[in-house]
């Protein structure tokens, strides 16, 4: 299971990117279809009914398949980056109506769910992930933010300086290992 993190400047120029392969098992997620279905009937039997309709098996199959999709060689790298880029459309829209910093699961492309974090300085952290892990991602984003703020304290670091600090890199990695 892989995660892709991008740090973007307010001009949407990526400054740092990280691919993290998590060794944690995929968490079983509640079937999203249950929430997709307009509410009907007695809720006590909703699960049974969903099972009967055959929809939940569909969802599970989808997730199993989603988990199996891997980022291949260099050829697919641009697709991942393109997905991150495309999610900016939604992130900007959400930013207009919501002032929260952590935007969870703003968008979804095939098997990739996009979570984002917008700092008060209008920097965007984008994370592409395959499974649901809201709390972990929130903590991860907060740590990355803290590390980023420390990086910003460097007077030679401008808005568009790529973050090449090995300390930053190793700490982000450690944080990803911890939370993702």
């Amino acid at each position, binding site marked *: 299971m892989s995660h892709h993190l*991008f740090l973007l400047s307010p001009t949407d*120029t990526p400054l740092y990117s*990280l691919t993290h392969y998590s060794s944690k098992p995929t968490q079983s997620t509640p079937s999203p279809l249950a929430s997709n279905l307009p509410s009907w009937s007695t809720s006590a039997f909703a699960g049974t009914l969903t099972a009967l309709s055959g929809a939940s098996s*569909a*969802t599970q199959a989808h997730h199993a398949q989603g988990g199996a999709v891997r980022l291949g*060689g260099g050829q697919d*790298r641009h697709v991942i*980056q393109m997905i991150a880029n495309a999610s900016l459309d939604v992130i900007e829209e959400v930013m207009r109506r919501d002032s929260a910093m952590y935007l969870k699961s703003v968008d979804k492309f095939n098997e990739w769910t996009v979570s984002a974090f917008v700092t008060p300085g209008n920097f965007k952290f984008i994370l592409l992930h395959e499974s649901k892990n809201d709390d972990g991602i929130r903590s991860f984003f907060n740590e990355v933010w803290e590390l980023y703020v420390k990086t910003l304290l460097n007077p030679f670091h401008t808005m568009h300086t790529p973050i090449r600090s090995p300390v930053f890199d190793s700490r982000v990695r450690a944080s990803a290992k911890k939370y993702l």
Partner: protein
Amino acid sequence: MAPLPYSLSPHVCVLSSPDLESVLASASLPPLPQVLQSFSPLPNVTTRTTSLTSVTHSSFTIRFSDLVEIEAGCKEDEEVRASRTLDWIGARIAKRSARWVEDTERVQAGEKVGRTPWWDELRRCVEGDHVPSRIEGWNHPIAVILAVSTTAPNPLQAVTALHSRQLELPPWVDSTYLKYTLIVHPENSPLSDEEAGALFNAVKKQYGLHAHLLPLSLPSPPPPAIPVPAPLPRLPPPPSPESLLSPPPPPAMFSAPPTPTPGAMGSSLSTQMMSFASSIDGPASAEEERTGKSSGNSLRMHEKDIQMTARFVREFLLMSVVPFMEKCAIEWNETYSSTRRLPSRLFSSTRRLFGSSTPSSYTPGHASTPSTSSVTSRTSISSVTSGANGSQAGGPPPMHRRLAEFATILGDIKLAISVWESLRKEGKGGSDILPLLLAPSPALALHASHALNTLHLPSPDPPAHAQFHALTYAVRWTIGINPQDFLSNTLEGERWLVSTAGSAEEPHAALLLGHAALLSTMKRAKRRAALWYLFAANRLEKCGVRPLTMYFLRKAHALYTAGPEKSLSPSLWDSEDRSPTDWVGFPDVKAGIEHALGRLLYTTGNIEGAIDYFLGLLRRPSTCFISRQPPVMTNGKAAESGVDPSATDRIYLEDFRVAFKHFLATGGDDTRIAGWKLPIKFCNPKQTKIRLPNQGVNGLDNVWADRETKWETFWKSKGGRNRLEASGKAAVNETFWVDIEVQNPLDVEVNLSDVTVVAQERVSAELESPVDILEAEVIDDIVLAANETRSIPLAVKVNRPASLVISDVRYKFLSLLPVMDSLACRGRRLHETALQRQSKTYAPNAFVTVDVEDADQRLQGNFVEDGRLEMAHGECKRMKLWFSNAGTRPIGELWMISGDEDELWVETPNDAGSSSKRPVTSEVISSNNSLLAAEPFRVPLESLTNSSSIPPGGNVELTVIFHAEKAANDELCLLFVFREGNDQPFHSARVSRQYEVNPCLRATATSRPSRSPDHLYLINVEIENVSSCGDLHLRQLTTLSPTWKCSPIATEQTLGCLPVNQTARFYFDADRWEEGSAEQTLQFVHKKLGDILHSRSIDPSSPPSIQLFCRHLSDGHAHSVEDTPTRHFVHTSRRKFISRAVATEHPYIPPASHPYVFPLYNPAALDVVIFWEIPSQERSGYISVSGLLLGAGHAALKELIEEAQNAKVKRSMYAETQREREGILEAIRTSEWNAEMNPIVVRVQDGLRVEHDFAKGGRLAPITFVLRNYSLTHPARFTLRLGHEKRSSYPSNLLPAQYSGRLSHRGRLEPSQQIEVQAKMWITRPGAYALIGWQAETQVEEIPLTGQEAPEAHSRRIRHRYIQGPPLADRSCIVVSNVQSG
């Protein structure tokens, strides 16, 4: 609400008799269904809902099709048919895409309208599907028209035959349909109008009122064609074995446009204004099929016939179809409402909940058996079976579903919604239709996704029929939902299309994505649009639809590179010093798209375009740092370690190579090649250097500049006017090198071939293209590893004097693409004017230049032994320099300029003879006593060569001795300046050599007043071997001093081998050397420092020369210091020592004036020179120990300083000046020239042993105090007081002294005089008595100035007063022991 899609309209099947077909064919008309289809949709149709409310449809579509076709279609397996349909769609799109793309790119209208030809085509293909499906009832026939003509031999029998024909529809097709009889009565019919009327009545009587007599004139020849809307394409029938042999019939494609609009009705044939004859435009249709271009469709029909047919169609709809549907709806609604009542609901859900496998069903309210229509009933409902779940059970579709469909068609939206909702809740579909009927809300998106989810699992390869149905849904949504609503943020319809596309890799899925992208573009979500275009392109590429793939990729590329529109402050860009337009974005996205585009272009034969793209891929944006991860172990095996950058580069490079080779192989155009620019640079212009053969490769530039300055200063001081020609000029026909630095920015190995430099000639401030004067080396091939940086020397030769600018490097990238890399460095940023500060302005580009001059004066010099030199500290190394005159004219004058710190001696043949071999133990040498550095040395060419000059091609060998004075790593840089003769300019040559000096001996010299009454001082020299050489021998120690004379105490045996880490000690007695004169030197310093203190200018006069007394201690033959190299090196060592000391001590006195202020030797100074030798390595050398000052000083500058302090101070307004003045004063006060100390040294003779018989009482012991005046100049008076010590300060184990007798002794000591004072101590018991408890007061007398009368001794003024006592740690004592006498 948008009009319902075409496919959601009543489907009417037509079964025509053969005679009718022949009638129509003879009138050049298409088959009847197509003729009738031309009259759909109908305007202004009013229907009634179940609650009997009228609904007016502005247009009402009705579909006609051939019953035989439908029967055949139903027989085909649904899965097979679906996959055939998808293939058919794909093929159509593939065939036409090239022309579409061409047209679209010409018109550029797609984004504004939201329509693209390929999407329209897909939509028409999908909407044109008319074969009934198992899972939905839209295509199930609502009515069957049985049509005959009166030209039949027996029309009534023909009608009967049609009515008696069993429909060959499968059981799952709804059998609730209306049978309608149509009698076409052409003008040329054998029957008269009356007979036709009779026939019509008979038919009505026998088969019910649903019948119509249609009289047509069908004139011959047919009237001109009138255009009708293009028909929807329909899937051709499956190829049967017979049809494979014969050409396939032209597909039936005669139907109404998919989305009839009221405006289109004006051109529809249903209006009365048209007068056309009709005929099917079969060839046109075939043409369309072939070329992929839609030509206009037309019908050749007479105006009257049109009116009659229109009337029939309208009547058929209003009188038969609509009432039939309304009746069905009402009947079924009753049943439906009854099942909705609570008990049955409970019952059914209970059954469902408790595991009954039977699907929920309702009790059919009307179980009429299949029957032909009765005469009495207005409608003929053939059958309604109770198959509620037809799709599963193989029976007809459930009645609820049909009810919902009928209600939808009839516009009874309220009923339709409720029935669809209930169907959806039962899991029987409906989610697909509900978004068309409901008002926009977020729930619609859920309906849509539910519809898709129930249809097919999102597996990588869903079955074809599922894909096709999903596609149908998506098409219906795009048509049936208002575009504004569909695009709105609540629905986000484009996402529905994306999820419909799923992961299927079929053209239709790609088109769905493409349309989603188009919709996103309309919503201004450009980045998402780019992504979907890319996805679409990826899928289309797999299907091989190249033109459209390229179009999608180009769209993705354009949308991506356009960059985001940001509403950021304009000053942000200023502050970040960036332009809003140079947005780079993600590092790999652009490359990824361009690579795909390039490959497509290559495969489609556009090699040049492909090369354009491949070249662009080599660019490396560096905005984003991509963190590389080491491989992670997961479950025991290494997971993919992210991305390998070299893999991408290698692919790009390989593609470029292949494409370019192909381009060259196919006779590539040279002008095209010149247009290609490599986006990366391999050369680093800043590191480009010119290397000349006569120029020392090493050595810092400032060192050489120092040497040149030194020469110029020297030559100017000599009064010479000839300038030194600038160094760094190359000579004509002499090879020099241009060092270029090549750096590979790619992550993959590349090769550059035919690398060479390009130069331009500078002629009077203008650059001219290079004439043929330059011979530059061409390097065949350079292979650079990934990210490698390498410096490459290129040999260059010029055949006439010129000023060259090295402007470019030329090479062939990968041995293919010729590239010119500029060697220009950007000039510095200019800040002079306000304009320059506001906008970035740079000085002109800087190039590496080289001047080439005639080679008349060239000297090439180098060390004979070249290589790194390792020396021991103090070693004298003899080195040979070899010079050859490479010029065309002789060299008559040669100067050597070395650094101030370098100790060098040029050996001339005269030196060898002058080396004296006298065995001496002491000698007196003379020194100029000046700190001035050595001047440039003129090499005596006369003595080195036989002639006075070096002829062209001649050689000279020069031997220099180098003395390593300091342990360090350094470089010996020698500048040689030469010329032919007088009045010629000088030229220079450089020679340099690295050396390393290792420490060898550590020596210290200390002095103290001698205990011996015969000598003044004792000198202690300690020498430690700190080298790793065990074979080090000390050969000689020499002391030098202007006023002191040393004599060794130890014998010569102590000299010799000094093992590693051992220390040897030597002692010398030092006494006054009476011949030595200090007076002149002291006066010189006095005067000069006085000048400084009074801020007078210092006249450049050197100190007077001085005589040095040298005493040698050697183990045999002593080196004379008089020998020139030795003397030179001793002098230089001392000079460097003093220069450094003076520079630290007097930082405010300018270093240039030091030689005119401070002499080399302080008269009181004593130096020791230690000669060593390593016989096994034949190395020898010597080190000097300086810094000893002997004798007492008396603040010689006291008056001067007081005078300066008391002088009327000129206040300066600058605190710095004041501080500097104080600094100078303080430095002079504490300098060695103003040293001040107590000149009298008191020594108690200790160690006396006294024996006494104390039985006889105490005794007096004599104590001798020796007082000596160490001053060389001043007499001093002293007072010695005894018994003044406090008890507490006595050492604990010694007894206190008790002096008796005379306790105060006074006296006067002349310079260097010594006196003994006898005191007595009263001793009463044996023990050790400490000889302390005395105090000496000293008064130094002034000496009268020369010329003055010396006053009486007692009346002289006192210069200094001192008090001294025994040193704190003094343990001198006398020991008194008791002896029994007698």
